[in-house]
């Protein structure tokens, strides 16, 4: 276990010092800020529409009519689209919209971030043979699990950076009646974002274990992420088609996206989907390890 933690720490250290990981972090932060800003403008437009409907004066700063907006049917429609499930709307309608937006954006972006960041982890070290310095001192399973853990921490850091950026955008660009509550909700959603990222870190690391070419590993990982979204779309489509229901049901059980709906659940209802997502991530890592443990380094 100590070796796993040592490898994880070293991996994180390296990732932070690698321009690529830093660039991905910055890109994620900038994208979060941009999406948050667009969302704030969208809230402003919705509030102005609402003000027109109610026959009251339009607001200058988005968020001034947040309470009215959250109880409007317009916002309920938006929530329904974001969560993909109308029955979650009642449970989430009182949650700060910016926190919900950040969770939605995290679910959309974290898979690509997680897979891209982790895909070079092992492949590049096998290619340069740098892995030999560690491989003579610890087991291959510790190497893989440690790097997996390091990449998870990196994903968590990215999610926290996103929280910080979105909070700043919210605090400066819109009226936030209770900033502490906004920050609390943003942080409360981080574990869900991270849980959804686990299978994709696993996919990235699996790709990194099966080839010593970082470029191929990246193609495999990003292809797998894109493929999983495509498969998810097909499975959702197949659910309503005769003869495909069983296949679709199975696909939705093994695809992380199939558990996405559960990750929106309020209370502790999101924990089971989160655990399943973690198990899917570990399964992906284990599948890659079958190849890695037998290969020459």
């Amino acid at each position, binding site marked *: 276990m100590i*070796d796993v933690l*040592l*490898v994880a720490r*070293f991996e994180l*250290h*390296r990732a932070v*010092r*690698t321009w690529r990981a830093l660039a991905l972090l910055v890109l994620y932060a900038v994208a979060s800020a941009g999406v948050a800003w667009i969302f704030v403008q969208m809230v402003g437009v919705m509030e102005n529409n609402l003000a027109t409907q109610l026959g009251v004066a339009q607001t200058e700063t988005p968020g001034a009519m947040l309470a009215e907006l959250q109880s409007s049917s317009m916002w309920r429609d938006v929530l329904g689209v974001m969560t993909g499930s109308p029955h979650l709307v009642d449970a989430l309608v009182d949650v700060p919209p910016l926190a919900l937006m950040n969770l939605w954006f995290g679910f959309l972006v974290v898979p690509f971030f997680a897979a891209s960041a982790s895909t070079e982890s092992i492949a590049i*070290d096998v290619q*340069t*043979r*740098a*892995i*030999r*310095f*560690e*491989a*003579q*001192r*610890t*087991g291959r399973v510790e190497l893989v699990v440690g790097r997996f853990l390091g990449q998870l921490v990196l994903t968590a850091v990215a999610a926290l950076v996103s929280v910080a950026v979105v909070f700043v955008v919210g605090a400066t660009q819109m009226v936030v009646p209770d900033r502490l509550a906004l920050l609390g909700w943003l942080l409360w959603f981080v574990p869900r974002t991270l849980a959804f990222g686990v299978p994709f870190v696993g996919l990235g690391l699996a790709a990194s274990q099966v080839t010593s070419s970082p470029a191929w590993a990246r193609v495999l990982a990003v292809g797998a992420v894109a493929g999983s979204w495509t498969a998810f779309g097909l499975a959702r489509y197949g659910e309503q088609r005769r003869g495909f229901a069983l296949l679709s049901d199975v696909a939705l059980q093994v695809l992380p996206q199939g558990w996405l709906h559960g990750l929106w659940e309020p209370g502790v209802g999101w924990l089971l989907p989160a655990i399943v997502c973690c198990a899917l991530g570990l399964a992906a890592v284990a599948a890659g390890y079958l190849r890695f443990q*037998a290969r*020459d*380094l």
Partner: protein
Amino acid sequence: MDAALRFVDVVKRYGRRGTLALDGLTFEVPANGITGFVGHNGAGKTTAFSLVSGFLHADAGTIDILGEGPFEPHRLKGRLGVLPQDAELPDRHTPRELLRHLARLQGLDRATAASETDRVLDVVQLGPRRDARIATLSHGMRRRVAVASALVGRPALVLLDEPMSGLDPVQAHGLREALAALRGEQTLVVSSHDLSELERLSDHVVMLKDGRCVRQGPVAEVTGQGAEVRWALGPGEVPLEALAAQLPEHRFHLEGDVLVQHAPDGALDTSSVAVMGALAAAGVPVRGVRRGRGLEQRFIDDVLGR
């Protein structure tokens, strides 16, 4: 002889139908000495090192490391140090960070890892650059960091694949002295194409050709230092008959300008005065004297079959 490392009939092939890198390799490395590992390019030196370190998997045969069987990282933790030949160092870190990490992975506690790191960086004369990013170091300096990684924690068995490669003469001399100082404390296996360097450094030698061991033993025995003297001569009639008469138990023959003297064990030192006297009497100048063939000559004889 206690063997620190033993290969028995080890076979390694790259790819399903690929090159046969090791073809029943069998040899032993005695404990607590310095063994030179010699072979032409592709002879299997790096493959053998990689098998010991667990980087590669053998197709057949047995490898015994420090009496513990084949490579198993947890069983050998901290007891095996390897300098891989062409592995790039993780260059985002400083030498100190990297070596501390590797020392911790070897099972050293934080304080010991820190002191060991400082020690080995001093051994390879990199103390002043210990906090520079590895990416900013020269090739020779990186090589020395890699050598330091193999020495950290004083492992019982150290494999160094081309440790002097890329070092300038002063650095190479310093490293050779540092390695020689470890004699008797650790078992070192050093591969190099610089055979004169290996001859100076090693007690024992293992010669490889096409994935097989063609000769192994103490350097003095392999090079014939105890049984052969080579006299480099100037112009003149070499008195072979006189020498044979004076030293009947010795055999003499000429290889060009070199008079080769073969002697029974222990008789070389006492015979040199007689040989010098006979040559002087015949007016043949002596330009140089060397005991044995030299590792390089022996290697060429064995490998090229001359």
